[in-house]
């Protein structure tokens, strides 16, 4: 190489490094979808405002617990529970029986009670009988909870029965 040749090559190297360096500095190496959290890790409870928010936190904790038990992400399980067809696809894909799924949901519901207690959103006075109820909940009813999420959230009080009324009173 002679004359302006080396200058051209140096210019090309500098231009390339400036471009790549500035893009990396602007976050180019981490511009990707956010990684979902491990469902087995405890999740922060926010201060619930009203029974519906408490039910939501409770559902999210239950999802975490069930997903942890099944070894899938909370997000994958949430999508699987959205419709019966999605649930069927999910159980087929991961080779999970309805009984195993229901068991996991039950474990998730119990973890939700634990999380609520730990966060101070639920008194042990409520937690202990609620946990007892959930431990005895039949498997088909657990599946029903999965299929009737909408109704569960819309009618959380009637679903929880007397416990729901007490909860409402205990909330700020």
């Amino acid at each position: 190489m002679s004359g302006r040749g080396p200058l051209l090559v140096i210019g090309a190297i500098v231009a390339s490094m400036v471009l790549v360096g500035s893009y990396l500095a602007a976050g180019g190496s981490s511009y990707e979808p956010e990684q979902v959290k491990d469902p087995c890790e405890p999740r922060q409870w926010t201060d619930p405002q009203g029974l519906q928010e408490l039910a939501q936190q409770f559902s999210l904790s239950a999802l975490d617990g069930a997903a942890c038990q099944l070894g899938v992400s909370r997000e994958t399980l949430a999508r699987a529970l959205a419709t019966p067809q999605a649930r069927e696809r999910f159980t087929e894909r991961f080779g999970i029986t309805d009984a195993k799924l229901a068991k996991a949901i039950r474990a998730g519901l119990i973890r939700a009670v634990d999380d609520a207690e730990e966060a101070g959103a639920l008194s042990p006075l409520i937690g202990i009988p609620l946990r007892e109820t959930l431990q005895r909940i039949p498997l088909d009813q657990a599946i029903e909870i999965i299929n009737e999420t909408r109704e569960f959230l819309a009618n959380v009080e009637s679903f929880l029965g007397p416990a729901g009324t007490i909860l409402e009173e205990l909330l700020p």
Partner: protein
Amino acid sequence: MGVVLADSSIVVLALPEIYRELDTSVAGVTWVLVSFNLVMALAAVPAALLARRVGPGRAAAVGLAIFAGAGLACGAADGLSTLIVARCVQALGGAAAVTAALELLPATVGSERRAAAIWAGAGATGAALGPAVGGLLTELVSWQSIFLLQVPIALAAAVPILAVARHEAATGIIEPELRSTGRPHLWANLALAMVSAAIAAALFLLVLLLIEGWRMSPIAAAIVVSVMPLAAIAASRLDVHVPDARARAAAGAILVSGGLAGLAFLPKATVALTLPPQVLIGVGLSLVLSALTETALGGRAPQAIHGGWTISSRHAGVVIGLLALTPIFTAEIAEQRHDAIDAGTAVILDSPVSPLLKIDLAARINTRLEEERGKVPTLGPVFEPLPTDPTERAEVVQLRDELQDQLDRGATHAFSTSFLLAALLGLFALAPIGLARRVDL
């Protein structure tokens, strides 16, 4: 010649449209591009030998007629297999026309050196201009118009060549026997193949990112990718200031790799951020393609045969680039789509909107994803009508934007590995460029 070489890349922006209209797969539609380049790679040298035997005028005229006829068949194709077969025939005609043109050019422009420079420049400009022209035609008319428009252009180019062909037929002035052609320039041709693989990947992947990933229309994508040919044209006079072909080739390969690495590390899904990498790639491709073609042709005779080798190397590179990278980015797209959906689900679950609205939105998004059949969806309509309550409205708008951001992140990141691998291919070309002896043209 520019039309034939632009044809190697002209369908790039039409591929998403062909993909939808002919109801095929990403891998299937890639063959519309691969078939043309594969046949060009295989036929270029035999076509050059034929041009030497029957006369360049006749070879070019027949080649252009075949190119035009096959273009008509491409435009009329109603299925992927018909289109691919027609593309193969088109490449056969194109190979004959392009290699014969190199034999015809010296008589027109005065010297072999000038002919080689013009031929190389036309190749680089054609390759860079192809996608932009194809995108404009796809949007303004249809993908079929890309091929149909080539028919009158090829026939018009054949008219002045007919006189040469008639002269060859009348006088019988053609090469009486094939003289020794000398060995093709191994390093220059190898570097051409590697750089062409990187450039093909740049064009193909960028177009897919803009149209399939960022949901742009072909015309908008065409405007965006026109930066590359504009930069190439602007840089085309650099050879006058830097006569050292090896330096131009090395600088070009570095710029192409730098631009591709820039596209691999886009920090946001914004069109403006694709412009600086495109400028680097455009300038780089202009420098490297012309320098390597001149090097491969310099001091070698006959020009048609060595030109045939450069055409063969370039198109073989395109084929290798497309075939190697297609499975990588299709797998990445599937993985990133899954990650983006997971991240989007997390955004919905953790958003402050009411649980019942969340469930409604989740069901609508699910339906939308199923409707889009694996493509990146636009989520805006899913959120319509927005709630009337200002607080709830603000929450839903924020949720929509966060969801779309996750999808954009996934769509952009899906191309990163392929862009990086293409950048590496460009960098590897520096080895044969370094080994290529300097040629005084």
